[in-house]
């Protein structure tokens, strides 16, 4: 694992209430479980297309979205399942969408890369790298106009910082002082290409200076650190500050998409990262440091499994959309 010096965010949040800890754990387990489930359904041929999994990065979405409500907005990426689940998406509708079923979030029209839930502020996964960021700028205008302390979080990968979208969006947000926190998930790869090949800087936080904004580097495998760093930043944004840039250093375990054998990864690299499993780590801290009962965790795990079983059943049993629905939903 590459050693990157992590700078802690603001301090003073030593206490995290039990419900939040449990909620964080539940989110992480649900994301992992969802991804493992759809991975196997993909292998079985029940889910077609491109599937970009979030396994290994669960602490990021979970730690961040724990601080959000459904009034807040996120934009997501091709690797969006984790963000959506953490923001409160219904796994039944998500999975059904991946199946291409009528009951899916997008009635089967979008698929994995386009999960949207307008009701809870998920403005869309996105198949175009970086495209969510300027959309977040627009949500930022809305948030600022509403003046109710809403926060906007565009998620993106370190690879996405190469595209003009990143620059234009952060720059514009800074000029207009919008309530946005740009969250970069550095998972060390852009598709099959390691960050050293496509990035001229060691960290993405170094890019914040170009926009005169404060930036924070976070261990994206430590859900407590993510949560605690984000909390005060999000509060500052709710109180009128912003934008900010946060880089969460993490790693993806699975291929860029399902079916990618990851031949481009050095021997043993993934195993190293797996030793630093954000979920296992958190679980052991929960019992050892926060004195949460093992049984409580097991019941979370079981509840999640049940929920996913139901989601799978729902997805399998849901009908495909009528082919004529192809022609619907083009215009409002």
């Amino acid at each position, binding site marked *: 694992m590459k050693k990157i010096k992590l700078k802690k965010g603001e301090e003073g949040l030593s206490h995290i209430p039990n419900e939040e800890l449990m909620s964080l754990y539940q989110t992480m387990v649900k994301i992992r479980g969802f991804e493992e489930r759809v991975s196997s359904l993909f292998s079985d041929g029940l889910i077609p297309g491109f599937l970009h999994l979030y396994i290994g990065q669960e602490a990021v979405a979970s730690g961040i979205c724990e601080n959000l409500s459904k009034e807040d907005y996120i934009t997501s990426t091709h690797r969006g399942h984790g963000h959506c689940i953490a923001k409160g998406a219904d796994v039944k509708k998500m999975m059904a969408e991946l199946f291409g079923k009528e009951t899916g979030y997008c009635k089967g029209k979008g698929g994995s890369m386009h999960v949207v839930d307008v009701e809870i502020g998920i403005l869309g996964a996105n198949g175009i790298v970086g495209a969510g960021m300027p959309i977040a700028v627009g949500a930022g205008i809305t948030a600022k106009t509403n003046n109710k302390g809403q926060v906007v979080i565009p998620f993106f990968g370190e690879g996405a910082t190469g595209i003009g979208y990143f620059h234009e969006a952060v*720059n514009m947000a800074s000029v207009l002082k919008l309530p946005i926190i740009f969250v970069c998930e550095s998972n060390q790869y852009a598709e099959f290409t390691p960050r050293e090949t496509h990035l001229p800087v060691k960290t993405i936080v170094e890019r914040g200076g170009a926009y005169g904004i404060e930036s924070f580097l976070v261990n994206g495998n430590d859900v407590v650190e993510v949560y605690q760093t984000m909390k005060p930043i999000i509060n500052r944004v709710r109180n009128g500050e912003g934008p900010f840039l946060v880089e969460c250093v993490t790693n993806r375990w699975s291929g860029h998409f399902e079916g990618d054998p990851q031949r481009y990864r050095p021997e043993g690299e993934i195993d190293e990262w797996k030793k630093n499993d954000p979920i296992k780590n958190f679980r052991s801290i929960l019992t050892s440091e926060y004195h949460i009962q093992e049984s409580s965790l097991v019941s979370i795990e079981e509840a999640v499994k049940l929920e996913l079983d139901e989601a799978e059943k729902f997805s399998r049993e849901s009908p495909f959309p009528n082919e004529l629905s192809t022609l619907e939903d083009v215009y409002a």
Partner: protein
Amino acid sequence: MLIRYNKAINNALREEMQKDSTVFIAGEDVGNAGGSFGITRGLIAEFGSARVIDTPISESAIVGMAVGASSTGLRPVIEIMFMDFIAVCFDQIINQAAKMRYMSGGQMALPLVIRTQGGAGLNAGPQHSQSLEALLFHIPGIKVVMPSNPYDAKGLLKTAIRDNNPVVFIENKALYGMKGEVPEEDYTIPFGKAKIVKEGIDVTIVAVGQMVNKALAAVETLENNGISAEIIDPRTITPLDTDTIKQSVKKTGRLIIVHEAVKIGGVGAEIAAMIQEDIFDYLDAPIQRVGAPFTPVPYSKPLENYYLPNENDIINAVKKICVGRQFSFASH
């Protein structure tokens, strides 16, 4: 009252902003400077800088802002200074704005307007003179408006702002100074309703944007040659009022389509293809198209004059299919 095309647009913006507080404007120089072409003049004074937003030079982020703001409850009207620049933000137009509703299974509505201006005739050179509506016309999910006079400009822009879909509103720089009667009271013009600018019986001329006026200029010469032309201005190309065109061609048996854009692959191709496909047996002669040659727009005066379709080109096209064929001069 008699006002100019540019003023008509300015009035539409002002009135809609007065009526609906969710309408806001963003773009380069639209605020304090009142717009590169003066279209947004006075608006920042009336509505403030939160609703008339001067942005950096970042067309992608400007359109993205419109996508994000419109999908969260506002009604952005953004300005892309020259139509040629839609190329720098084309992804946000065709892959985001146009598809978001569909991709989300109908969850999202995107009431946004992209105002821009195109057209040649001012020696603005190859990157500031194009008519690129055909590129938008081929993309499902957006509406495309091309007003040819002050009355239409105002009424159509109001409709655009009230529409719940992404609308590209294409002004023509050569028309900004055109005067016309515009009612004082509020009015709108429905999309997808062509205007029969002049009735006639021998040949139908469908002209878009600025070319409507060129077609009108050809009328006298045609009448002197005993040819009565019916001139149709579709006003919106998406949606396109195919019924009105068909009805006219059923009557005249002849069709000419005129646009300023490059002829090859232009909107005229679709109209011609569609008409011959649907009412082949009514056609007494091949459908003619008048459009620009297959070259960029040249800068130099004589070249640009040669490039731009004009009334002579229209007259020649008419003659080509009216004279010498079944056309009966006796009927006049």
